[in-house]
């Protein structure tokens, strides 16, 4: 929804489109909050619009194109696909609308800046955390997200390669199963995985919905806490699991910062300032012990109150 923060002195307020991959995940809510905060501070209008069907590349292109028609001043986008969004974004840029990419990269060098987590690194970090907890050996599984999602595939690759390179005694017993697009399908896949490998010692899940699905399955089978779960992203439910030590560690990104920097950098571009081509918003591994640290607490429970205003 549009958020007017006019300066009131009659000057035309800049309008920045912020386009997430979907609209219902906490992750995107945090980005929205960050973008709104920055917009309010800088006196620009933030237009927030996601694709009607989550994970639908075509629908996201539709959104970009309608912002082109609406002639916004800048676009901040988390592209659903590194290739598919290249054309419409290039068209935007050629129409004089600068583009800043957040969250996942796009195969196009005309973007002004790329602000994201290093997903590969995040996956590798999770591999280390899992291996350390298991003492360097044991049987683990990885439950993938859906087919064709770039950022989670990087995490998955980072995890698998991290294990293979640094923890040769860890045996990965399953890595081709997928949690699917919905939480419900993730729960089912997790239950079956747990049933199939009774002697499993650790699991890695590459995103919020799959981690949550796995957590539910572990809780339900009474194995929560005894099987080491390392996941990605935060949500109130996952934080709760972390506190109860049902989750060993969560790799946390900083979506609020991502949204905020996205808007800040686009305004920098519009005002002619130089912006760095790559900004790493960092990925932090949070455990039950470190979750109370203020920096981590802010990441785990971002302040989203701005959305309600």
């Amino acid at each position, binding site marked *: 929804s549009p958020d007017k923060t006019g300066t009131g002195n009659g000057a035309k307020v800049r309008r920045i489109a912020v386009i997430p991959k979907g609209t219902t995940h906490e992750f995107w809510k945090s980005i929205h909050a960050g973008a709104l905060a920055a917009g309010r501070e800088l006196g620009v209008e933030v237009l927030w619009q996601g694709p009607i069907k989550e994970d639908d590349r075509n629908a996201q292109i539709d959104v970009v194109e309608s912002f082109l028609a609406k002639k916004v001043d800048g676009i901040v986008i988390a592209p659903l696909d590194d290739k598919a969004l290249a054309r419409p974004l290039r068209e935007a840029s050629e129409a004089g609308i600068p583009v800043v990419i957040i969250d996942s990269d796009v195969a196009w060098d005309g973007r002004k800046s790329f602000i994201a987590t290093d997903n590969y690194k995040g996956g590798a970090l999770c591999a280390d955390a899992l291996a350390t907890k298991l003492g360097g050996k044991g049987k683990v599984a990885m439950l993938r997200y859906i087919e064709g999602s770039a950022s989670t595939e990087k995490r998955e690759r980072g995890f698998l390669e991290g294990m293979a390179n640094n923890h040769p005694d860890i045996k990965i017993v399953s890595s081709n199963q997928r949690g699917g697009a919905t939480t419900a399908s993730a729960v089912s*896949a997790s239950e*079956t995985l747990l049933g199939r490998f009774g002697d499993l010692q650790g699991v890695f899940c590459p995103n919020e919905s799959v981690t*949550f699905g796995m957590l539910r399955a572990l809780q*339900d089978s009474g194995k929560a806490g005894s099987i080491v779960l390392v996941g990605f992203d935060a949500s109130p439910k996952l934080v709760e699991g972390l506190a109860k030590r049902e989750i060993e560690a969560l790799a946390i990104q900083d979506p609020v910062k991502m949204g905020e920097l996205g808007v800040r950098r686009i305004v920098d571009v519009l005002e002619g300032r130089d912006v760095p081509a790559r900004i790493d918003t960092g990925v932090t591994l949070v455990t039950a012990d470190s979750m109370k640290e203020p920096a981590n607490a802010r990441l785990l429970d971002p302040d989203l109150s701005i959305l309600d205003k």
Partner: protein
Amino acid sequence: MTSGSILRALRPCIGLAIVLTVFALHPQAEGFLSVFNFKIVANQTVIVGLAAIGATFVIVSGGIDLSVGSIIALSSVVCALVLRAEYGVTLAMVSAIIAGCVCGLVNGLMITMLRIAPFVATLGMLGIARGAAKWISGEQKVDVPPAALESGGLQAWMSNRPDPEWLWFSPGVWTTILLALIAAYVLRRSVFGIHVTAIGSNEKTARLCGIRIERTKIAIYSIAGACAGLAGFMLCARLTVGNPTAALGKELDVIAAVVIGGASLAGGQGGVLGSMLGALMMAFLASGCKMTGSATYVQEILIGTIIVVAVSVDVLQRRRA
């Protein structure tokens, strides 16, 4: 004649048996035939199963309901919202069922009052209910507060380790079984059920025999909505989250279960227990594919093929009869 109808009733059993045997013999699928896996699969069948109970009534009456998935999502959100407002699990369940029932009622009214074909009316509801779910949830997953989880025992409804352990199956599974038995009995033995079959079999005859077609159809779609609503409650219990984007496309799974279970989309034929076997068969197939470590596409292709095979066997049988 009667041997044909017995064969017909047996068909989903045979299909299920084939699926079970194939995976039981598969070297990779250790643990497939374990009681534990059976428990898990039963639990995974609950949501499609509950929705399929209502859908059986719809399909036997010669209609179709495409709004099932959206209604499930809407009711799961309603359930979570009620819990968040701390009204307790029972009221949450009732609200979810009512939400589903209202959607179904609207379907029924559109079909009878506006005389819109069921396909179109429920296609409209598919969008409307999904949109409503996103709307009331503020386009966000609605977490059930921990208080409701602990005290009220929302999770217990769909837990694989039910509270009195002798229950063995989760209360959700028992609810489905119980409801399926009642529904099967209602469809076969109650006045309403016979009217449903009569409408699907020959609507003109039903009208001439003085059956109140409109009233019956409205009841049918309301029941289907209520079943989907209960499924939405179970989904919320399973996930401890009300999710407006959940159950996307589930309507087709539900229809597939009913069709595999022996119902004809032309109406007049089909039974609740067959639909349950159909749903169970699809769940076992999915479980088996995962157990053997097959990719998801194998499962998709298999289910597609099974739908076609099940129905063509039926057509062949009927042509020979």
